[in-house]
């Protein structure tokens, strides 16, 4: 909402500096987004009086003048205009002044004579369109005074952010009332007088409202014999100050009253409306299917049944509350005007405006809510102004169809409760006086105030709404700050939340950086990855996605993480270690809300670190990801768990596994399939895993039991088994453990060897590999002797060899 301070001052005294007004408005709920001072451009333009006007000796079309601008010596100015004579007062741009066109006035020689300034036309000053000659001013213009000040051009425009609950502030008068409350000043009401003549409007116009829910009130007046023409300067200026464009006197008056009082009005050319037996019939109704209307902006609109139209006998003539029709608009030929001032349903106007993509000053106000009580007042105000400016006659009376008059609401404000609610001690008479300036009449009743809320404040429905009015004007900054004193509360994170934090801590300790990816997903990528949806499961589909690449919700963090890998590589970053904890989504037929799961995803690519002086970088692979996983599961106390070979479309066969904890698959780990890497434009291997966080939480042990710290030394023996290649390390280790009781205390794999393919020299039998284990034997109650251990060890080795088909490496 643009507010001209000059206009505002007609209704309320603003006797504080603009900065203070802005601050007070900000702090009472009307944010001032911008302050613009107009008229500044004419700095350096003063009023001058032409003392002498002579012919320029060297140019036929120029004159050479002496102009008094209030200084000791008159200025000598060369001028090309002819419409003035000695003694005339004109605006003079002094040397150094900059005109709205950007022209800066300099001392200049024109055809041999020096010119010390420039006398200006209205067009040069940007105050009118007349460029034919100088702007000759009335005789009483004070010589030497700044022109902008004399002409009243200096104004301050406040751009206000009006919140949706305050439709009353979408008018100059409404803002004046708010400013009055904020500054503690009373407002002045605009005044007018109306002298109706001729035949009463009732006998010429009939109005019918078919749907009173959508149009609670419709009024019409007639003004006959109007002379359409340009608006006087004061009116045109106001229209411009409010941010609109002057059109003609009648249209400008309707806009003026819209800005002044907040009531959108529409003027029809009466003679363009269909008439039957001398009667103009206005019907407010829903549009019929297929109906069309060309609106004032020249666009033909297809109407639908949920839109409200104003119709005459022939069809729609205006889109109610949004925009008038082109065929019935006021033009130069208009003589008689039918003035509509009505009230329409907020939701209906909002829907219509949105559906047509058509926003007008009128629709903006109706969709926020216009006080139905205002319709007749604003109509009278506008009719009086049209008659005054356009010289027409206002027909007596008003057609006023108002089936359900708005009623002022009565609300009791309990001052003690208000103070208990706010934490304040505001006296009830202080509250009463704040409310009075806002237009709310209150009567004391004990400690309470019985308030009558005017119809222009539809937002004030409940007692608490009045608390807000009081506290915002009284000053939120004056409310003492306290902390809640409730007794029954204990803060903290629950187990799942703590676990999620712990996961992050461990992964970061492992060197992974946290990423936050978008939840959106491209279904084609899901298909390319081959993520398996469960039986009957579907992707979650957006109805209004931003693009086809973001049309669904993700089922895995992997594609987003691969995107990040690719993006990093494109930027020259090759060592990438990322994790993300976020939700993934699936739905199924019959479900309203999808299933949301929190997953932990991670990717490793490149090396842990760049080349260092102490070691060479090593490319990260499957076992680096598994190492991170081991660290994490170990920290969380997940036991037992293992990796099981598994086939996943998105992982490279042979480097692909499920993570199984306590018998449940809780995720997967592996190296991303080469074709997928190519599809994501990723170079090099990417090791990745994804775990279901809730399953992880289930598998994590809450409490760890103390285990005795060994007091007796252990005996360590190493053994290397040669096994067929398909025997897993886990099979051998499990066998060792199963035969080791009770003395075997630790088993650690420390070497894996297989002859490289095509090696010229074979160190192992074809198709085998060597797994070397370090075994630790220990008894809890004594020091073991070498001999005792050797016997146990040899038996164990033999049984393991039999169990897994191993031989010993020589």
């Amino acid at each position, binding site marked *: 909402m643009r507010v001209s301070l000059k206009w505002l001052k007609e209704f309320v005294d603003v006797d504080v500096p603009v900065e203070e007004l802005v601050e007070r408005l*900000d702090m009472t709920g009307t944010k001032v987004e911008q302050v613009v001072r107009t008229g500044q451009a004419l700095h350096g333009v003063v009023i001058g009086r032409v003392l002498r006007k002579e012919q320029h000796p060297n140019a036929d079309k120029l004159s050479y003048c002496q102009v008094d601008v209030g200084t000791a010596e008159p200025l000598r100015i060369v001028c090309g205009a002819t419409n003035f004579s000695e003694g005339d007062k004109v605006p003079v741009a002094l040397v150094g002044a900059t005109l709205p066109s950007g022209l800066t006035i300099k001392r200049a020689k024109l055809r041999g004579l020096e010119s010390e300034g420039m006398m200006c036309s209205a067009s040069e000053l940007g105050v009118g369109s007349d460029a034919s000659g100088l702007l000759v001013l009335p005789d009483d213009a004070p010589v030497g005074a700044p022109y902008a000040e004399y002409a009243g051009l200096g104004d301050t425009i406040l751009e206000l952010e009006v919140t949706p609950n305050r439709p009353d502030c979408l008018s100059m008068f409404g803002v004046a009332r708010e400013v009055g409350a904020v500054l503690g000043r009373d407002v002045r009401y605009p005044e007018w007088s109306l002298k109706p003549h001729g035949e009463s409007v009732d006998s010429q116009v009939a109005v019918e409202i078919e749907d009173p829910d959508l149009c609670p009130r419709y009024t019409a007046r007639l003004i006959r014999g109007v002379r359409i023409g340009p608006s006087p300067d004061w009116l045109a200026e106001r229209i411009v100050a409010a941010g609109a464009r002057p059109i003609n006197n009648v249209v400008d008056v309707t806009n003026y009253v819209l800005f002044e009082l907040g009531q959108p009005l529409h003027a029809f050319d009466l003679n363009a409306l269909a008439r039957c037996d001398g009667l103009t019939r206005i019907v407010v109704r829903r549009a019929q299917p297929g109906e069309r209307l060309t609106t004032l902006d020249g666009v033909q609109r297809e109407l639908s049944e949920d839109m409200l139209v104003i119709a005459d006998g022939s069809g729609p003539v205006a889109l109610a509350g949004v925009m008038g029709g082109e065929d019935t608009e006021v033009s130069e030929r208009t003589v008689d005007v039918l003035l509509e001032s009505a009230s329409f349903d907020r939701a209906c106007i909002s829907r219509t405006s949105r559906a047509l993509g058509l926003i007008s000053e009128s629709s903006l106000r109706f969709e926020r809510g216009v006080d139905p009580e205002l319709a007749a007042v604003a109509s009278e105000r506008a009719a009086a102004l049209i008659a005054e400016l356009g010289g027409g006659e206002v027909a007596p009376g008003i057609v006023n169809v108002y089936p359900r008059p708005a009623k002022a609401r009565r609300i009791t404000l309990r001052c003690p409760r208000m103070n208990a609610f706010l934490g304040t001690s505001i006296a009830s008479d202080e509250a009463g006086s704040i409310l009075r300036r806002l237009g709310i009449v209150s009567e004391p009743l004990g400690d309470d105030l019985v308030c009558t809320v005017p119809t222009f404040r539809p937002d004030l429905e409940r007692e608490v709404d009045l608390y807000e009015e009081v506290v915002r004007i009284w000053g939120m900054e004056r409310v003492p700050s306290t902390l809640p004193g409730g007794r029954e509360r204990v803060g903290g994170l629950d187990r799942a939340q703590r676990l999620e934090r712990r996961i992050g801590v461990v992964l970061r300790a492992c060197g992974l950086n946290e990423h936050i990816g978008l939840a959106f997903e491209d279904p084609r990528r899901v298909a390319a990855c081959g993520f398996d949806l469960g039986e009957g499961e579907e992707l979650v589909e957006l109805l209004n996605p931003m693009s086809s690449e973001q049309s669904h919700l993700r089922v895995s963090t992997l594609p987003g993480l691969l995107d990040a890998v690719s993006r990093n590589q494109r930027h020259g970053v090759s060592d990438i270690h990322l994790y993300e904890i976020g939700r993934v989504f699936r739905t199924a037929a019959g479900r309203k809300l999808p299933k949301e799961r929190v997953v932990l995803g991670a990717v490793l690519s490149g090396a842990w670190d760049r080349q260092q002086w102490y070691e060479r970088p090593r490319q990260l692979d499957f076992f680096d990801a598994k190492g991170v996983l081991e660290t994490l599961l170990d920290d969380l106390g997940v036991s037992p768990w293992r990796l099981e070979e598994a086939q996943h479309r998105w992982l490279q066969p042979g480097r692909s596994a499920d993570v199984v904890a306590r018998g449940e698959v809780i995720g997967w780990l592996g190296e991303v399939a080469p074709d997928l890497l190519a599809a994501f434009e990723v170079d090099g291997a990417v090791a990745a895993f994804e775990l279901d966080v809730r399953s992880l939480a289930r598998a994590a042990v809450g409490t760890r039991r103390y285990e005795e710290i060994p007091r007796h030394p252990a005996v360590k023996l190493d053994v290397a088994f040669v096994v067929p290649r398909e025997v897993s390390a886990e099979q051998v280790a499990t066998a060792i453990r199963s035969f080791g009781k009770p003395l075997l205390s630790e088993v650690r794999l420390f070497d894996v060897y297989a002859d490289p393919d095509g090696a010229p020299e074979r160190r192992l039998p074809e198709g085998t590999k060597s797994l070397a284990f370090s075994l630790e034997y220990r008894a809890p109650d004594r020091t073991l002797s070498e001999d005792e251990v050797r016997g146990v060890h040899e038996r164990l080795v033999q049984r393991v060899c039999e169990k897994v088909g191993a031989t010993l490496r020589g």
Partner: protein
Amino acid sequence: MDIAGSLIGLRDEALARIAQAPDLESLDAVRVAYLGKKGALTAVLRGLKDLPAEERPAVGRVSNEVRDAVEAALAERRAVLERDLLARRIRAEAVDVTLPGRRRPLGRQHIIHQIVDEIVDVFVGLGYRIAEGPEVELDYYNFTALNHPPEHPARAATDTFYVKDQSGGATGAGLESEVLLRTHTSPVQVRVMEKQQPPIYVLAPGKVFRRDVADPSHLPQFTQIEGLVVDEGITFGDLKGTLEHFVREIFGPDRRVRLRPHFFPFTEPSAEVDVSCAMCGGDGCRSCGGEGWLEVLGCGMVDPNVFRYVGIDSERYTGFAFGMGAERIAALKHGIPDLRLLIEGDMRFLRQF
């Protein structure tokens, strides 16, 4: 030559060799040569027993002196050589202390989650618990129960992502369905109040979605932190005091806070909260657009209509709620010029915080 004389000769010879021994091994060889089982000095000493008895005391004294002198010289020389050896080792082991240390760089937490955790910790300290809700929400929780009228513009398909309803529920006019991506964390308020009677002290951080094209100041997905308190006797002053505490904890003890009345459908009274600009302290500068204040959150007292939806008696209980955007706080606190950096996963960005 008498024995005493030869002892003195051996002593002088031994002392000279000891003094010249270049290292510990040579020194040990000298010791063996004189004091070893077959050493020269040992042999002489062994011969003492063959001396006449009257000569023995005198010669014995001399021989003891000689042995003591040799042993002392050996010990002294050994100490010198050991010191030299250590000094050489230390010299040899000296490093360039300016070489980088051996390390595996720690990973970093995303700046948004650092901020969220920091805020969570402040409110946990004030006795709040953490609440969560679904990211795919029902219109009822996201709008209706938060007192948004049916025609509220936030419901527009241009602003809110709608999700296909698989339950066969009718899709309303245009694209709107009853299922959507939550546009704020406020629906968690409603879900908490539906499940729990007061006292309620919860904080709800989470992702939210708005249909904005990603640009330097907008993201289609961002992070909000919602707070809700419902109890007997909660006042607007409590809201103010709580937020002032929060702002000082997060932005620093010197920052000032102001509440500007505002409008939100689900709170009454409502306010926006500004923090004094860190750069100018409130005088107005370029970084705060000349205002001296930076808007960081919205807040208000829980609207009685919201209490009505969840069945809480608004005469008995009062409450407040507040919400803020973690991305905005990150941008303000850390000077992040383009919010898109937050979702790109660029290691060079992530590793800065």
